[in-house]
Every structure is written in C-alpha cells, then in structure tokens.
C-alpha cells in the first residue's frame, strides 16, 4: 500500500474538511457589517498590527529543539540495535548524549531557555 495509503488518507482528509466547509457554505449566509471582519480583541478596536516582531526567546527554543531533534533521529536506529550490540553501543550513546548535554547546559546557563 505504502504511498497510496498516504495518498488516500490525505485525500480523505481533504474531502472530509472540504465537505464540511462546503456544506456550511451552502447552508449559511452571514450578515454583513463593517465590524465583522475586524480582528477580535475583546470588543476593542486593535491598535497596531499583530504582525510585528517578537522577542528573541521564542526562536532559541526552536534552535535547541532542532539540534536535539537531529540527535533523536540518530537515536532511533541506535535504539533498535542497542540490545544486540550491547555495551559498546551504550557507551557510544553516552558519549553522544554527554556532548550534546554540554551544549544544553551551556544554553541553560546562558539563559537561552527562558521564556520571555
């Protein structure tokens, strides 16, 4: 099945969502007024655009995550075979994790992992 299964699932999801939205298009009609399209902010007109830049804290998480994610990717094949290989694999992994952990500790110490 493979790719075809994925294809079917994707199409099913699209049909499902599109069907629902289509039905709602068919059966509803909205009233129109000038305030309707404006962003909701507790009933007060907004000031400024929301699309302004954010604080640095948000993306440092992403960076640290990304690097850990890569690490994870290497762990999967390792995990599968570690039982067979035994301690050498464990030691390799301990090294691997240790090295990354240094980075993690560094990030921690630098305060990169603080939400701002």
């Amino acid at each position, binding site marked *: *099945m*493979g790719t*075809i*299964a*994925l294809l*079917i*699932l*994707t199409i*099913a*999801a*699209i*049909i*499902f*969502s*599109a069907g*629902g*939205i289509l*039905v*709602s*298009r068919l*059966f*509803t*009609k*909205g009233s129109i007024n000038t305030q*309707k*399209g*404006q*962003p*909701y*902010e*507790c009933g007060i007109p907004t000031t400024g*655009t*929301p*699309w302004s830049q*954010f604080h640095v804290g*948000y993306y440092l*998480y*992403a960076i*640290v*995550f990304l690097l*850990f*994610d890569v690490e*994870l990717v290497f*762990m*999967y094949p390792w*995990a*599968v*075979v*570690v*039982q*067979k290989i035994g301690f050498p694999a*464990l030691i390799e*992994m*301990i090294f691997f994790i240790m090295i990354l*952990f240094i980075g*993690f500790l560094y990030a*921690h110490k630098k305060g990169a*992992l*603080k*939400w701002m």
Partner: protein
Amino acid sequence: MISLEAIKNAVQSWLQLHIGGTLALVAESILLGILVITLFAVLGLLLVFMERKVSAVMQIRLGPNRVGPKGWLQTSADTLKLMLKEGLTPDGADRFLFNLAPFMIMIAAMLIMAPIAFAKNFQIWDINIGVLYISSVASISVIAILMAGWSSNNKYSLLGAMRSGAQIISYELSAGVAVITMIILTGSLSVNDIIASQENGWWIFKGHIPAIIAFIIFMIAVTAETNRAPFDLAEAESELTAGFHTEYSGMKFALFFLAEYINIFIVCAVAAILFLGGWMPLHIGNWQAFNHVMDYIPSSIWFFGKTFLLIGLIMWFRWTFPRLRIDQLLNLEWKYLLPISLLNMLLMTIVAILKWYL
C-alpha cells in the same frame, strides 16, 4: 468470533473475486477512505461527548442529557450546528493560509492514522518504522497551528500560536525519548513488532521502573503536545480568549476542535501500543484459564479499551489541574522531563542489555 480482521479479509477476498485486479485496489481504497472518514467523525463525536460527560461527573453535575436519548445526540447537534454556522474570514487575514490551516491539521491527524493497529492484523499501512512515522507526521500539526495563528491577523492568535509552537516542539523531544526508551526493548520500530513483543506481558509490567517512568513522561509529553490542559496555553481561555483559533468559526473551527480530539486518540493509541500492548489481551504469567478467557475478547475491544482508558486519564488530568505558565511549562520540559527521560533511556538500555525484563 467476529473480529475486524475477519471482516477485512472477507471484504478483501470478495473484492478480489468479483472485481479483481486494479479495480479491487481502487475499490479498497475508496472503502478505506470512507472508513477513515467515518472513523474520524465517530471518534470525534464520541470523544467530545465522553469529555463532556466525564467532566460533568467529576464536577458533580449531569452533563448533556437532554438532546436525544440520554444526551447522546448532543455532539451531533453541535457538529451540525457548527457546520451550519457561517465560516468567517477576517478582513486582514491572509485568506489562503487562513483557510489552508484547518486542512493541514486534518491531513496531519489523518496521516498519523496509517500505522496504528486497531486490531489484530488490522492496520492501514504496516510501515516498518511505525512509531517514528507517527512522531514525524505529528510534527506537521505545529505548522498548521503556526499558520492558523499567524494568518488570523489577531494578536491573541499569534501569541497562542507562538506559545503552542514552542510548546509542541519542546515536548516532542521528551515524547520521542520516551518512545525510544521503549524501542530499546522492542528492537523494532514497527507497530506490529512492538505489539508482538508484548505477547507475554505488557511493557509497562515487564519493563521495570524505567518503563513506568517512560510511561509517565510519555503521557505528560503527549498531553502537552496535544495542547490539552494543564498544558492548554495555546488556547488558554483566561489569557488569550481562544488562542490560535480565536478567529475561526463554524466548520473551520470544528475541524480544529475535531483534530484536537483525534490527536488525543492517536497519542493514546500510541501509548497503548507502546506500553499496554496494543490489541494484546492481558495475560498473566501461567494462568492458562485466565489467559484463555482474555483471548476470547476481540482484539479490537482490547485496543479501544486501553486507548479509551488512557484518554480517560488525560481527561482526568484536564479536569483536575490548573494550567501551567508558559515559562514553567518550558522549564518543566527542559529542566525536568528531558534530562530525566534521557537518563531513563540510558537506564533502560542497561536493563535491556542485561535482559532484566522478561
């Protein structure tokens, strides 16, 4: 005994016999599509209803009980109403992305379904890297949320999206490590192999303390990943009104709502597969008679039973705990869960290498 497997085989052979070849494949595909859509709808309705009832009983009240017999049609009415509600698109929004986001989140939810074994030999795609596949596809939904939050042109949405972005990616790590911890034991990523390896006992029993720790960490992490309370910062009502889907209405909102519940189902299914043996019946040591009785319960019931049990657990969390603050949430992950789970993984390696389980 009627099992899903038998039905599947019957349908398959019938199709082969009467239509044959490529057409059978096509027919099967269509059937599959219909099946998953129905599954989606039914699961969504069921889970939402379950949530409302569970919360009601915990909160010493009755919950929906007036629409349809015992209130069973409540969620149907809700869905129908949401379908019949106007789907707004705010003026300032990026229309294309705004409308794409619900599709994305649905596709992500749907795709994760593929390798889940609902019953013995009943699975959409027996992919050899099952759990890895699941954790990979699950990460798509982050993008959908970021998309939804950004395109809404709303500050609450954006804040909510940023929060959930950081939250989901963070917790993906410890969820992943917890999964890896179990994979060390199973030695395979395939869902079927994982389940098969638990024939004589579920990992949560066999795997000693590391398995239990991994289980706890996994449950916490997936709760966070699905944006459920106590980690529901993305849609924290009291802070950001409705978070990243503040501007969504009608069916598009319903899709987000539905996807949330489907995701819960999926993560609980994964937990059931990894820790509780998926559709494996409960076997206790050498109690032959007991094991036999257990075998008689269809595998699908085992699977759904376990999954719903875990869903119940997650709901229990939700209705008990206050919400964390965003920095605490991330602290919890980076300071506690991730180091602990990494350590736990190494511990598990030792257990596995020394073959202490069994």
